[in-house]
């Protein structure tokens, strides 16, 4: 082997060592950062608050109650006959977030949906029958004017999605467990 070939060979090895060392350093830095970033995720006690039981016997027809779940308002609406019919009669193919009313409720009289506008997170008005309910009789978001129907589906305005339906089950006829 000549001197220059020897040198080139040496340089290649040195490059390889440097690159692997730097690579390992980077892997180590990411590994060290991961638990720190993960600590920002919801803590155990925050997650523990994630189910609530609500007595719904006192909610009159046509009104709703707003309960607090995971730091968010949840609307529990006792729908009237007309509201149910309106929600069921909609032509689903014309909606921007296509869902039938049946997919969104377990019992037609009760609509349960998270009261957070899917645009940028304001709380829509319309839970009380005295509040403005928008053009589709459901809810109207005061922030940028999203209109929701009586099934909590987005009908008009900037919000992209329907009001999300949380996981829930009826424990009895009058008690519902959310979460």
């Amino acid at each position: 082997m000549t001197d220059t070939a020897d040198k080139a060979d040496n340089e290649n090895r040195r490059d390889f060592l440097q690159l692997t060392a730097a690579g390992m350093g980077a892997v180590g830095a990411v590994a060290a950062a991961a638990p720190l970033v993960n600590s920002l995720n919801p803590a155990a006690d925050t997650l523990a608050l994630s189910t609530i039981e609500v007595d719904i016997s006192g909610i009159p027809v046509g009104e709703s109650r707003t309960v607090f779940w995971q730091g968010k308002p949840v609307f529990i609406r006792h729908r009237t006959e007309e509201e149910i019919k309106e929600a069921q009669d909609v032509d689903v193919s014309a909606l921007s977030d296509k869902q039938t009313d049946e997919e969104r409720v377990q019992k037609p009289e009760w609509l349960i949906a998270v009261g957070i506008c899917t645009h940028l997170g304001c709380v829509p008005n319309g839970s009380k029958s005295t509040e403005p309910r928008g053009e589709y009789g459901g809810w109207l978001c005061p922030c940028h004017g999203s209109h929701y129907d009586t099934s909590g589906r987005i009908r008009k305005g900037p919000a992209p999605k329907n009001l999300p339906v949380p996981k829930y089950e009826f424990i009895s006829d009058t008690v519902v467990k959310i979460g």
Partner: protein
Amino acid sequence: MGSGTREKFDNPVVDWVDERLPIFTLMQREYGVFPTPKNFNYFWNFGAILMFMLVVMIVTGLFLAMHYTANTELAFDAVERIMRDVNGGWLMRYIHMNGASFFFIAVYLHIFRGMYYGSYKAPREILWILGVVIFLLMMGTAFIGYVLPWGQMSLWGATVITNLFSAIPVVGEYIVTLLWGGFSVDNPTLTRFFALHFLLPFVIFAVVFLHVWALHVTGSNNPLGIDTKGPQDTLPFHPYYTMKDTFGLIVFLIAYAAVIFFFPNSLGHPDNYIPADPLVTPAHIVPEWYFLPFYAMLRAITFDIGVPFTDIVIISAKLGGVIVMFSSILIWVVLPWLDSHPIRSAKYRPIFQKLILILLVDFIFLGYLGAEAADAKYFGIPVNYFGLAATAYYFLFFLVFLPVLSKLEKGREMPPSINEAVTSKGH
């Protein structure tokens, strides 16, 4: 830093220290005899003003932090206690609160100065980019700081802005939960925001150091945008610009003090004196005034971008708004390459000069639109359309006009040197 020749100082103590740590030599070189173009106008005052404001914010913030409690149950009352019971607390808070506004007034003028006089061009690209980084950090710091008093605007402003990240496809929701540390803006959010609000100004401080370092490598630009060619074009920084900077700072502080003492709440929103309530959204959410132009661009995008004649949406209106808002600032990073015209100063570029003044008006108009209710109308036309037009001009300026002008614009005749320009009459 340690190398190079060192001149002896008369004071033996100073000289003894300087021999071991040449800090006096450094100050003398960078702020004493530092050669500075002799034709600065008052737009060159804002850098010094910004440094002063950063120190003011850090000092008042530190003392506020000694009385503040980052907990959703206690934060609002802690700030009210600062206002009513802590000795001089109202003053510290008003200095800090309005300090943020005056910081932004200064930084906007500082940035516009850079654009108008072409300070971003070679060899000052890194200096400019570091400035953009500082601006982004400032926006983050101010946004997070506004959450701390935990009023209605704190909570709902934070909710709307953090929700922007949910527009990112696939990982968006995950990022938002990570930011919140829960399922809404709540106590975990407040505590981490406080920690970051404490930290970020020091990060800003570090980047400012790099910014000034880069400045002292290239030297300052000037209103004519021509390079200094020798001692006849410059003045030593001290006493000439130490004096001019001090004078400008005093004028600025008079305006600042007038607001602190006579209209301390005029720049803020009254709803932030209502304690945060996660069940009630205020009727009209507006960010602080210094975010309004960007907020208007965010709101201007109300349409989905998709494959024509199908339902397929590629970029939803929400994501589109977010992209437009962030790119409106990030576009500044590539400004030195979008505008490759050889002349720096707008003074010698007649078309650029007009277009950038229109940009200024456009930007102020956007700020005005950002404060309007979303469903407001002018002459029966929804404000959105005005917002869209103004946003379009903003991006046209950077992405189309600048590259085209770089090729086509004929400059005015330039003076041969700073010295000749300022000593000949008719200047």
